[in-house]
């Protein structure tokens, strides 16, 4: 490798390694980003992408390896230094302060000490010039996820960086918003800036990136020009082998099947300062079908899940009906006893207690439904029975683990999710409600979970899946409804649904307007 080549690169990373305990998150990673290119960093969940960029931004300290900036060796000890070099970052989990205004948020990452009003004016001007309008006085807690990302991007651009790192930016955007973002990125490239674009979405990488570096299990497994690859070849590089495609036979005779989950005029006032109210939601899920609910994060999906599951019961008993009976006034335990099962979005701390063993986590959702099996006389827990049942689920779902009965926190995201889904499937529920079934899960586990959900439906259960991942919903749903600002659209049968239609609904278009907008465009 000659010195000249080095000079051409804005950023050059050699042998960067980071370990957490026994886990090697990044293993001798090499990466180079040239001036004026959009460089993709591709990899599955858990491949080490976020760890790598955190080292580039100075929030994590590498164990070994070198970083060159404009050919000069640098040690990036903190984000302040990274910013001084000219590295800007748009985080996947935004680093914003909900109780502060947009302008205050921006001011906190600028070190120039100019008054907030000046910063607000600059931010407003810049945001309009890039077509990402922003009100600097608004409180971040009141903003949508897309608007929050704008703050992150504007905050990053105000530092006039040479290299902008974006970590999974489109995961919180509608397809239309993503298009808008791509325009912005292309404009930045034309201004000579470099972009390191982290994603696991192959189509968009093929569309906007000039080069790609692929990570798998912390190691670089290849560099390529994504435009010359197919989605399938990129996926193979990422995953290491072919992922089995999910098989979905069309549902039969759904129209006449029994409705197992009915939601009638469900409304809910916001519970916390920054949460979304639910507005008159109606939905029917029949035996044998999978209904998907799409939507950008933070549009009421969490509140909807809480209401349907009974974590927060309703005033109106008829607003949620399970297997033909009113369930709105029942607690989550009461609804489970009627045959419903639930998988929440957060695994650690919601679906599972992190510091408890898998067998104890089994008890979490099944102490009442399987009370006789797991709990003996006088409220004594039958530890043998829960251990045996946990092992059965581990086997059925192929949960990989390091000890016979480890703590939930010791499992990888994918394996824990398989256990949590398996815990509910083990009951053969007639109604299954899942929020973000494969969020942060590796491709193999995701495919497995999706397949089991389809099979559960085809065996006669009603399955409701809430997801931000449109690809996933198109893969498994028989119909897709969209949640926006606490309202739910009518479900579109899968044969009629397209990314454009669903995307417009996600952006807030009324069901009728979606057709219209497409026709006129």
């Amino acid at each position, binding site marked *: 490798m000659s010195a000249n080549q080095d000079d051409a690169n804005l950023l050059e990373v050699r042998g960067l390694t980071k370990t*957490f305990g026994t886990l090697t998150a990044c293993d001798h990673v090499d990466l180079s980003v040239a001036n004026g290119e959009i460089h993709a960093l591709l990899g599955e969940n858990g491949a080490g992408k976020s760890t790598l960029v*955190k080292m580039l931004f*100075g*929030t*994590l*300290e590498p164990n070994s390896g070198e970083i060159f900036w404009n050919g000069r060796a640098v040690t990036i000890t*903190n*984000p*302040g230094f*990274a*910013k001084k070099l000219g590295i800007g970052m748009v*985080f996947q989990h*935004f*680093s*914003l*302060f*909900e*109780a*502060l205004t947009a302008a*205050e948020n921006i*001011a*906190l*990452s600028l070190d120039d*000490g100019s008054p907030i009003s000046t910063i607000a004016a600059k931010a407003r001007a810049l945001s309009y010039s890039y077509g990402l309008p922003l009100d600097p006085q608004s409180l971040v807690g009141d903003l949508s996820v897309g608007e929050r990302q704008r703050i992150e991007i504007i905050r990053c651009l105000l530092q006039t960086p040479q290299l902008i790192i974006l970590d999974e930016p489109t995961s919180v955007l509608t397809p239309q918003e993503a298009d808008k973002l791509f325009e912005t990125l292309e404009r930045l490239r034309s201004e000579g800036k470099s972009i390191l674009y982290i994603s696991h979405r192959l189509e968009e990488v093929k569309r906007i990136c000039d080069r790609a570096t692929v990570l798998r299990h912390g190691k670089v497994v290849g560099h390529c020009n994504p435009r010359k690859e197919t989605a399938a070849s990129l996926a193979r590089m990422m995953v290491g082998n072919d992922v089995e495609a999910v098989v979905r036979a069309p549902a039969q005779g759904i129209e006449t099947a029994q409705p197992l989950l009915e939601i009638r005029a469900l409304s809910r006032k916001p*519970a*916390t*300062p920054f949460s979304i109210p639910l507005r008159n939601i109606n939905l029917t899920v029949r035996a044998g079908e999978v209904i998907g609910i799409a939507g950008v994060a933070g549009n009421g999906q969490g509140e909807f899940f809480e209401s349907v599951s009974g974590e927060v019961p309703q005033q109106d008993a008829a607003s949620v009906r399970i297997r033909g009976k009113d369930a709105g006034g029942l607690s989550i335990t009461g609804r489970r006893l009627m045959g419903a099962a639930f998988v929440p979005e957060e695994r650690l701390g919601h679906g599972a207690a992190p510091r408890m063993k898998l067998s104890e986590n089994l008890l979490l959702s099944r102490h009442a439904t399987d009370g006789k099996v797991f709990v003996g006389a006088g409220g004594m827990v039958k530890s043998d029975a829960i251990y045996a049942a946990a092992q059965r689920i581990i086997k059925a779902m192929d949960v990989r683990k390091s000890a016979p009965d480890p703590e939930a926190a010791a499992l990888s995201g994918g394996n824990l999710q398989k256990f949590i889904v398996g815990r509910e499937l083990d009951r053969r529920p007639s109604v299954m409600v899942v929020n973000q079934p494969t969020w942060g899960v590796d491709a193999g586990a995701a495919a497995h979970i999706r397949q089991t959900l389809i099979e559960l439906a085809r065996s006669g259960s009603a399955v409701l899946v809430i997801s931000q991942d449109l690809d996933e919903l198109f893969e498994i749903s028989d119909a897709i409804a969209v949640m926006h600002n606490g309202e739910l659209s009518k479900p579109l049968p899968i044969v009629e649904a397209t990314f454009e239609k669903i995307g417009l609904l996600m952006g807030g278009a009324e069901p009728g307007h979606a057709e219209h907008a497409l026709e006129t465009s």
Partner: protein
Amino acid sequence: MDITVNILLTIATAATPLLIAAIGELVVERSGVLNLGVEGMMIMGAVGGFGAGYLTGSPWIGLLAAIALGAVFSLLFAVMTLSLATNQVATGLSLTLLGLGLSGMMGTSFVGQPGARLPNLDIPGLTAIPVIGRLLFGQDPIFYISIALTVAVMWFLFKTRTGLTLRSIGDSHTSAHALGIKVIRYRYLAVIFGGACAGLAGGHLSLVYTPQWVENMTAGRGWIALALVVFASWRPWRVLAGAYIFGAVWIGQLHAQAFGIPVPSQLLSSLPYLATIVVLVLISRNKRLTMMNTPASLGQPFVPDR
């Protein structure tokens, strides 16, 4: 007229230690740290202030000693909760228990001794003005410090960039860390500031309020200061108002006892504590409002990944 002035002056004297301790704790909690050791730091300030004043004969040295002891004592809490990420509630409690024990031991020889008292302000001409003269120009020096402190903290928190940074840490320490803000360093400084304030408040008790050393002389004032911060929804000017309301309750029950109102003196003595409970209930009833005002990372341990 004179009686009114006297009552107002005693209310101010009773309110001042509450105000100072609560303002200090407010800054600590705005940074996201819950230090339940206020009572302990305060009593250390009280014993240190009295001791230094008694041994040197100078109440001013006593004042400095009170501040220093409160700050040093809070450092213990800071090392535990910030560097060792211990549970803040348990650590704060243990700071209080340790402070009560340590001060009792340190103060054994001070019991019953006459202490030094900080002199009241006396500006020729001004202090002699009827009514307002003594209220504005004739109080003890710590009273003026307490008011200046309140104004300064208001200005610091809401008008300076450093104050904004401190508030941002209280809102989300993970976001602050991701932006490169030195979370732990800010919190250390906030905790020590809170300790110095609590020490000063304790010093006021043993150098102004009752210039002597009595074991457990803080009598729950540290806890009331903690309640004041909640009551004030983490806003300095409301702490000021709350401290004076509580000062009035405190003085009111003392006067009622002195007037021989036919109510058990114990009931009157328990009024400040009962009032604290009532006030807390009133302010916390609205869950949504409470969530809005509470620093979001309050009490959460923070261990940065490196």
